[in-house]
């Protein structure tokens, strides 16, 4: 009898728990975003001002797309993939909803970026993305141990045996392609040519493999590797480099000679978003200059919000200027939208690099 009661109790707890967990709460904004893009204080302020609860899932481009693909655009109310990854995903999986620009305070967004994003995220006549955070991928270098590194291919220098790290993802392929004198973006629409470039990169990366300590996958993991001295040069995001620079002046972010890779992370609406209004409110909220500046400080990257620079602390501005003299800034290679099918080719290359000995 006692056990019966026990199970009844369990069942009640279970029922209550499931009711709580599985019932969708209308006033919740489920945000699928990158680390640092929604700092706790910003979220709290937003929640206070609007009464909307924000639930954050940290992710990266691939994860975002694959999560939305599995749900066919459900489960989240607002996502933040990079602008170059939107159209192909939409074409293949139909996971996004067109953005209603009239609901966005476009005056707060830097016009050139808005225009670029609009152009790159247009699919079948509809615009899917608005810009949020932008930044670059380049090199993080510890000057005391790896002062020779100026370009991606310098990571393969013999002196850096076992102390290099990069991601085994497409930016590495693109970066190496540029450093090898190719223009992969120009070859986007020509698979054969692109394959040739990839082959070249593959050979180089395999030769270079003995230099690699570990392929990093998450930003903080890389920071720890560099911080502890286990890695002295890496291909990584600028924000990480600046963060490390603040801790240890020897570590710097360097724009590679062949050009840093410029990316813009956007806001997109998943197709089955349940809190569209809240999503627009969030976009307009974070695009306010002061808020955007706080995001910049948390993420380490600048945003597309007009005039937020003023509110950003000087260290970051100095670091940015140090890493990006005008020439380097002009030299940034901005990602154009990735045509469908390309990633499969890249995937095989990455697999082979990983498998090589």
């Amino acid at each position: 009898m006692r056990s019966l009661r026990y199970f009844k109790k369990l069942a009640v707890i279970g029922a209550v728990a499931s009711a709580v967990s599985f019932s969708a709460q209308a006033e919740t904004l489920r945000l699928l975003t990158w680390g640092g893009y929604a700092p706790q204080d910003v979220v709290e302020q937003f929640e206070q001002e609007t009464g909307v609860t924000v639930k954050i899932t940290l992710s990266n481009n691939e994860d975002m797309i694959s999560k939305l693909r599995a749900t066919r655009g459900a489960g989240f109310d607002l996502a933040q993939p990079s602008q170059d990854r939107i159209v192909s995903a939409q074409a293949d999986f139909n996971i996004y909803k067109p953005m209603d620009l009239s609901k966005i305070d476009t005056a707060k967004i830097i016009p050139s970026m808005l225009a670029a994003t609009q152009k790159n995220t247009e699919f079948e006549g509809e615009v899917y993305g608005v810009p949020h955070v932008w930044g670059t991928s380049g090199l993080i270098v510890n000057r005391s141990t790896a002062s020779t590194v100026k370009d991606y291919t310098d990571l393969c220098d013999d002196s850096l045996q076992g102390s290099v790290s990069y991601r085994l993802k497409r930016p590495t392929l693109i970066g190496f392609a540029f450093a090898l004198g190719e223009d992969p973006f120009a070859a986007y629409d020509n698979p054969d040519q692109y394959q040739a470039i990839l082959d070249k990169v593959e050979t180089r990366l395999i030769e270079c493999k003995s230099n690699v300590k570990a392929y990093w996958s998450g930003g903080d993991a890389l920071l720890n590797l560099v911080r502890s001295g286990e890695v002295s040069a890496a291909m990584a995001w600028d924000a990480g480099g600046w963060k490390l620079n603040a801790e240890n002046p020897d570590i710097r972010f360097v724009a590679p000679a062949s050009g840093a890779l410029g990316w813009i992370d956007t806001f997109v609406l998943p197709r089955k978003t349940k809190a569209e209004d809240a999503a627009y409110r969030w976009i307009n909220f974070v695009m306010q200059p002061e808020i955007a500046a706080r995001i910049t400080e948390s993420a380490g990257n600048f945003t597309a919000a007009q005039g937020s620079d003023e509110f950003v602390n000087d260290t970051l501005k100095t670091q940015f200027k140090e890493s990006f003299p005008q020439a380097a800034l002009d030299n940034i290679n901005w990602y154009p939208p990735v045509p469908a099918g390309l990633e499969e080719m890249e995937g095989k290359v990455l697999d082979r690099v990983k498998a090589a000995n």
Partner: protein
Amino acid sequence: MIPSLSSSRFYRVSYRCYVGLFFIFLITPLLVVAAFSFNDSLFPSLPWQGFTLDWYLGARSPRLGLLHDHALLDSIVVSVQVAVVTTVASLALATCNAFLFEREQFPGKNFLYVLMLMPLVIPGVILGVSILVFSSTVANWFEVQFEVELEALRPGLVLVSLGQFAFITTIATLVISARLRKFDLTLEEAAMNLGASRLTAIATVTLPFLRPALLGAAVVAFLMSFENFNTTLMLVGSEAPLTIAMFDRLREGSTPVLNAVSVLLMLGSACLALGSLFVQRPEKA
């Protein structure tokens, strides 16, 4: 070899050393995790920077301690919810299964039994993947045919629970069946002989007899669900259980707040395991 047989001193000492080393091997990683949760450093490795409780109590980023890390705390709540639902469901089904396999004779019983064991030899990732694929197929079909969105069939806590339930039930069934097999059927007959209906007999005699197994299975199911990673990874939606949340952080290279969570987990699991032993003890005496 066994105590009743004499053996050389060297043999006994080296055997004991081996067992000792084995336990050191077992316990060291956990001790290390626990120790580094008190390291006053931003990441869990040497050098030792001094003692701190920041990773439990710290209120501000980057030294955000466990008690203020809402994302981690939320994921613990999610894990508990999933584990409770999974435990209750798998225990209910497992009890049915135990009665079916121990009491009934029917054609195809052996085949069904083998099928019931299958989840033990399906890698967790594959189980997750197959359920993901199938539920998507079904949900897509409903979406196309009826324009209904079956949210439960999209990655999320329902699917996570189902995925875990799919294999935990097998384990619970084995535990409960083993106990039911030892049940003396005449006890049930005695109850009926004394005036109980069949269901009353089961409720008043058989289920109390199964209680230790049910509790044991509940603890096992709860912990297995709580710590499941492989299946959950493929089915998780916007709300992440603790293991997934920790994995994401680990990949990102997080602060020793992960060590703090781990210590919490160790304490919780140890309490649960010891508690279940304590509950089962009087039965054995």
